[in-house]
């Protein structure tokens, strides 16, 4: 059996990538299991999905605690303690990181003890579609290659899974072309199966229960949500071209998160610690004074302080 854990941000396609790998393995006659970790978190917040593939019946269930392969859709997750992307890693684990850095450099920079391989899927996807879209197909392609699954199975799996999501044929074709190049381009580090009997599963997170007499969780603070920064959610940031701004207030009025305020001179001031990069302001601006700029090194440029 081989165990694969996908990590991404909601909307990046980790869940569908996990399905693609499961389906591709199934098409090759293997037994497959895949399940996203359901949380109440949202688009942009850390998510994970677990896939197991095997020639034998799979008896293990639940979150993968000892992964053979970890696929990381967004390098900014490595520094995010809540995402726990490297949990359960050993020197034998293969870690794929979607990053522009070569494997060796990524290994050092992110201090990953496992065997690391990288490819800039974000850039390849931008080049294919001209805008940021979910990375499900590229992530699935990379995982299939590292696991030694065939290109035809990958192709059939992507077609099926993306059609299930109701994506139009043109988009599916774009994804197939993109997946094929990712499949070919990723530097291969073969994923070996964990040998021997697995040790008792470790619990990743132990919930703390209070006796019901204490009542339910209570937040005694007020208006403290800004302590939680959401700037890392962005792939694109809105940037002001001050000369073009006519001070109309529309960006300020329409920002769902209230991260734009107007200065005394009626110029928008953007709070990049919290801007989630939804681009509503860019769309609303009547004079095109707000432009979308890609975050320099992928979504990870912004770091929590």
């Amino acid at each position, binding site marked *: 059996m081989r165990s694969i854990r996908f990590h991404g941000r*909601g*909307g990046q396609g980790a869940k569908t990538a996990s399905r693609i790998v499961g389906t591709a393995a199934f098409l090759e006659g293997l037994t497959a299991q895949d399940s996203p970790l*359901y949380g*109440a*978190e*949202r*688009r*942009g*917040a850390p998510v994970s999905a677990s896939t197991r593939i095997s020639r034998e019946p799979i008896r293990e269930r639940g979150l993968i605690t000892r992964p053979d392969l970890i696929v990381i859709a967004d390098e900014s997750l490595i520094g995010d303690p809540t995402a726990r992307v490297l949990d359960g890693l050993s020197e034998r684990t293969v870690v794929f990181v979607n990053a522009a850095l070569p494997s060796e450099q990524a290994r050092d920079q992110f201090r990953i003890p496992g065997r690391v391989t990288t490819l800039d899927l974000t850039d390849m996807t931008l080049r294919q579609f001209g*805008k940021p879209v979910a990375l499900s197909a590229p992530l699935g392609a990379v995982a299939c290659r590292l696991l030694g699954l065939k290109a035809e199975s990958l192709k059939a799996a992507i077609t099926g899974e993306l059609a299930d999501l*109701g*994506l*139009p*044929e043109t988009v599916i074709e774009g994804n197939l072309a993109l997946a094929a190049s990712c499949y070919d381009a990723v530097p291969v580090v073969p994923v070996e199966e964990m040998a021997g009997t697995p040790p008792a599963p470790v619990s990743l997170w132990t919930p703390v229960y209070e006796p019901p007499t204490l009542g*339910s*969780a209570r*937040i005694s*603070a*007020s*208006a*403290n*949500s*800004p*302590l*939680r*920064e*959401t700037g890392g*959610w962005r792939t694109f940031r809105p940037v002001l071209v001050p000369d073009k701004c006519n001070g*109309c*207030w*529309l960006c*300020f*009025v*329409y*920002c*769902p*998160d*209230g*991260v734009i*305020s*107007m200065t005394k001179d009626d110029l928008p001031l953007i*709070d990049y610690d*919290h801007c*989630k*990069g*939804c*681009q*509503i302001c*860019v*769309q*609303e601006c009547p004079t095109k004074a707000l432009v979308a700029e890609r975050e320099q090194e992928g979504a990870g440029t912004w770091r929590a302080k």
Partner: protein
Amino acid sequence: MTWQRETFKKIKQIPREEHVLPGTSLCAGCGGLEALRLAAKVLGDDVVYVNAAGCFTMLAAYPFTPFKGSWLYTTMGSAPAGAQGVRDALDVLIAKGRLPKRDDLKVVVLGGDGSTYDMALSSTSGAIYRGLDFYYFCYDNEAYGNTGVQLSAATPYGARTTTSPCSLQHPAGTIQEKKDIFEIWRAHKPPYIATVAPRYPLDLAEKFARAATFTGPKLFLALSACPTGWLYDPGETPEVAKLAVETGLWPLKEAINGAVTHTYIPKRKPVEEYLKLQGRFRHLFEPTKQEEAIRHIQERVDAYWRQVNV
């Protein structure tokens, strides 16, 4: 007779102060948050929010809250009952002289459409019947969003959800019509009901200002374009949310003691323009266009506006 705004005439009258602070984990581009933020600019900080389970539960995810005031979390079916308890407690404190009248708080229910149209319907009916002095703010994203987009009684005909997929038996996806909750509320004759849409911020703000002049139940239905559930890019929220109103699908109106006024009369673009922007309706256009289903949606809107006396 055209509807006149008294308080909010220009965009620069929208208050600068923020009452729903950033840092919540609602999706980038959430139309529900957009609507709540604007409403809160009129409601202010002296509010107790009573929040039914749903996406808005993520507003105050332990240990963080975006509000200066209080927030209480209830089950999906019981937020109006929770509001009754909070209102009663405030009234008792005031009556006993332990809370000065000037420190009184507004009680505001936040509920998704799953709560509002389905699970909390009886609780809401009871609260209106008892004349509870509260606000009800339904952010309507037309599905059970928080649990991964399942069909609710607010999901419109022809939309695809995870529990009403496009299938051989039902190629249009959802076969039910959206429940007319506005009319169900109106049958109770509360002092104030309004529909709002965050793309029409002055209309929205004005309605909250007007509601403040009434004692008793004040209920709001807010169009909440949802990139995650409706399947479009967050940046397209403006376009989608605007077309919902401009096609006539989301009428902007109010009802004072049951008497209805439409506050904005759209020129009514074809519904197709709205539908084709969203992945949840894509099966109506691809691989083959479902003319019948699209016509059905158009005819329902036409029929609605025919009976509106404008």
